[in-house]
């Protein structure tokens, strides 16, 4: 009896512990965080229950590869110049680097220099042009690098200390995707798009020439634009009407990379603006750039579009400035977040979306709660009607199972999704299976003429492996689902796996213990089963 006393103590202690964690889930997070008694962490509700935006973003890797080839093209050109070779044409097209030799005897040199880098390999030549592409290994490296940078930038934007989106999660999914989860209607989809998908590439360029429209500008340069220059536009907000065309150099004089901070603010003259601060290196460059070009205009471009082009009246020291033009409070705040977080290395596409409105999420929670209660009630009623006292014991086991399951999930900070609730209901149904197996065996033993005590002992020990087999096969299926499932389905796998483990424990241990308490050693002749 002393052995079973210890077991009772163990079960009671574990029930209290997990019961505490289960209870904590029903207490608001704010209260939990302030209280010393309750754990901070609890079960998280999946986005399908609380509503929210679930996006899987994929980088446009073709762009990343073109960028890389562009860099290689520049260095290749340098090396060729050293060797006194000037190709007739060198360009990046469709993920390939194409070079046309000016003289036939240059071909060998070009090939040698290109392959020297070990990151380019020859592709099938096309006409008179030499064609190169990235080696598979280097392409993988480029992919890997861009996804890492992307993850970093998206994370910084979402976790921004001032304008961030609380409780949001940014994780990598698979090899080349980023999963962003923004719970509970904090942003609408358009805002989220602005915040996440905007590349946020800020450039400062001195304006070489300007005109109200492209045609006027082109007319002025009828012999063609000066080398290494482009025309960029300033457009009216909303209508996309061109307000001005500017001739600027292709390469920026300074980029947003050297910023340390950006804040939205009000300016009496321009309305909403974004104030920025350079780091010390950036500040020096910015001072020199503005000092050298007093009297000219400085175009501030975001993602290739001119936001403003102020006249430089004096050298701007201290590394501070602001961007104005076409902002309202929201877009100014969004831009400041993007500038603080840095620009995306490549554009991203939304490849998968599972967004649930809060209303539907609330419907699901309500449905899930009622279904769980009904499921539990039906199963418990069946057990108690069919197995009487033993059924009451089984129901106690079921209840313990729910407490353990919710407690473990709370402790681990696991996510509960709608399929997860289904998994919970399913485990309740499957937990009673174990008791049915055991009780039917006990009945067999009783029919064979055994006394209750012996029948109980044999029933539990003989049914043990059957119960284990039944649950292990389901656990295997659950583990496969966990490995291959995504989003809410993964939630199902989580509750199924945890639930199987807790249900085996509670349906084997709890009723057994209760049988030991009553009838225990009492010389009963019949068993209520």
């Amino acid at each position, binding site marked *: 009896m002393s052995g079973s006393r210890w077991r009772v103590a163990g079960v009671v202690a574990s029930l209290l512990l997990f019961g505490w964690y289960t209870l904590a889930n029903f207490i608001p997070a704010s209260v939990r965080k302030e209280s010393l008694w309750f754990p901070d962490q609890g079960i998280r509700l999946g986005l399908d229950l609380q509503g929210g935006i679930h996006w899987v973003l*994929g980088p446009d890797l073709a762009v990343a590869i073109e960028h890389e080839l562009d860099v290689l093209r520049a260095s290749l050109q340098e090396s060729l110049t050293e060797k006194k070779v000037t190709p007739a044409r060198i360009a990046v097209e469709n993920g390939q680097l194409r070079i046309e030799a000016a003289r036939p005897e240059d071909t060998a040199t070009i090939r040698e220099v290109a392959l020297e880098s070990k990151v380019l390999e020859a592709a099938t030549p096309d006409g008179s042009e030499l064609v190169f592409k990235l080696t598979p290994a280097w392409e993988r490296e480029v992919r890997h690098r861009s996804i890492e940078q992307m993850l970093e930038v998206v994370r910084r934007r979402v976790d921004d200390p001032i304008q961030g989106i609380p409780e949001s999660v940014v994780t990598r999914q698979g090899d080349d995707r980023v999963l962003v989860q923004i719970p509970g209607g904090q942003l609408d*989809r*358009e805002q989220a798009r602005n915040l996440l998908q905007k590349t946020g590439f800020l450039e400062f360029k001195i304006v070489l020439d300007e005109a109200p429209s492209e045609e006027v500008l082109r007319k002025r340069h009828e012999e063609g634009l000066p080398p290494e220059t482009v025309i960029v536009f300033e457009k009216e907000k909303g209508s996309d009407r061109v307000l001005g065309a500017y001739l600027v150099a292709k390469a920026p004089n300074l980029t947003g990379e050297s910023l340390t901070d950006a804040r939205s603010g009000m300016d009496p003259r321009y309305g909403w603006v974004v104030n920025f601060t350079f780091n010390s290196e950036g500040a020096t460059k910015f001072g020199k750039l503005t000092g050298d070009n007093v009297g000219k205009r400085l175009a501030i471009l975001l993602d290739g579009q001119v936001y403003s082009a102020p006249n430089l009246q004096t050298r701007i020291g201290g590394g501070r400035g602001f961007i104005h033009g076409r902002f309202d409070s929201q877009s100014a705040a969004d831009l400041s977040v993007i500038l603080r977080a840095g620009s995306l290395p490549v554009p991203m596409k*939304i490849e*998968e*979306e*599972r967004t649930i*409105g809060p*209303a*539907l999420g609330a*419907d*699901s929670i*309500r*449905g*899930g709660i009622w*279904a*769980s209660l*009904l499921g*539990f*009630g039906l199963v418990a009623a*069946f*057990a108690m*009607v*069919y197995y*009487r006292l033993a059924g009451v014991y089984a129901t106690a086991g079921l209840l313990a199972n729910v407490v353990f399951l919710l407690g473990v999930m709370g402790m681990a900070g696991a996510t509960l999704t*709608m*399929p997860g*609730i*289904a998994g919970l*209901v*399913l485990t*309740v*149904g*499957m937990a*009673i299976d174990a008791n*049915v*197996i*055991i009780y*039917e*065996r006990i009945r*067999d033993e009783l*029919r064979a003429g055994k006394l209750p005590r012996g029948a109980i002992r044999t029933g539990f020990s*003989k*049914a043990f*492996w*059957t119960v284990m*087999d*039944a649950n292990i*096969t*389901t656990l*295997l*299926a*659950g583990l*496969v*689902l966990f490995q*291959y*499932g*995504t989003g809410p*389905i993964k939630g*199902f796998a989580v509750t199924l796996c945890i639930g199987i483990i807790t249900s085996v424990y509670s349906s084997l241990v709890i009723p057994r213990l209760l049988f030991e308490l009553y009838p225990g050693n009492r010389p009963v002749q019949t068993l209520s089963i």
Partner: protein
Amino acid sequence: MFELIRPDTHFDFIGKWKYCVAGSIAIILLGLAAIPIKGIRWGIDFIGGTEVQVRFADGVKADEGKIRDVVQSVGVGEPSVVRYGEATNPEFLIRFQSGSEEQGVEQNLIVDHIQKALTEQVGALSVDRVEYVGPKVGAELRSNGAKALLIAFALILVYVGFRFSIEFAPGGVIALVHDVLVTSSIWLLCGQQFDLQVLASLLALIGYSINDTIVIFDRIREVMGVHTKQDLPAVINQAINQTLSRTILTSGATLLAVIALVVLGGEVIYPFAATMAIGIVVGSYSTVYIASPIMLLLTGRKNAGESKPAPKAKKSGKQAKARA
């Protein structure tokens, strides 16, 4: 004792196996035949596409045709629009393949366009759900789903082969394949769509459904060891009868819980719950009527002619004795 099945019941299960196998094959063939005629309704999870669920405000008059026209007007080709929910608060599910992506418009924006157009031309609404699966992700989910199903099958077989006699395997596998095929056939014949939730349910089902089969096979071995003189059909019948109450009770209890989900769980979880419910019924039926006859056909023949069971059977009978 409250007994559903009296311990001395003697149904002749094996005698009816031909009808049952024929019935199952008929359902599977019907399901297969329906594929070229009706086509499988794949969920967007597997073929890619967009689903938008909208709920109009009270009193807004909306119907499928009108919504289809509005959706088409923003440049979506062939949307399917289904209405459900109560009459006062109409809800619609708009579904389309993402054809417009090639024209450079991101799906994400299209949903916003649809929302705007519907608000302007039909009435106030809220977007309850947006699901979009791009072509790349769809292909991945498809191959992962197939992989998951195969791996789950393989793992369970390895486990069963490891824990029990390998002779159980053929009957067990065929019963599992049967369960998956019949359940999906019934589901598809009901005109429902096949998505990730259904796949998850099938996976959980094969893990669950193998158990009954194992218990009966075990009992068959046990009975074989005791009644060495009986012929195999009689042995199998006896084993099924002995475990019948167990088979019905365990499936019945799980079914009770799952039915609660079907009835109260709500629209989101319905595909999962419904296929699970079908699968549990199909699974216990196959245990009794499909797995055992197959065992009889495959392994039974060679034993049936002998007056004594093979020594191997005796050995595993002993092992099985320790089991319920």
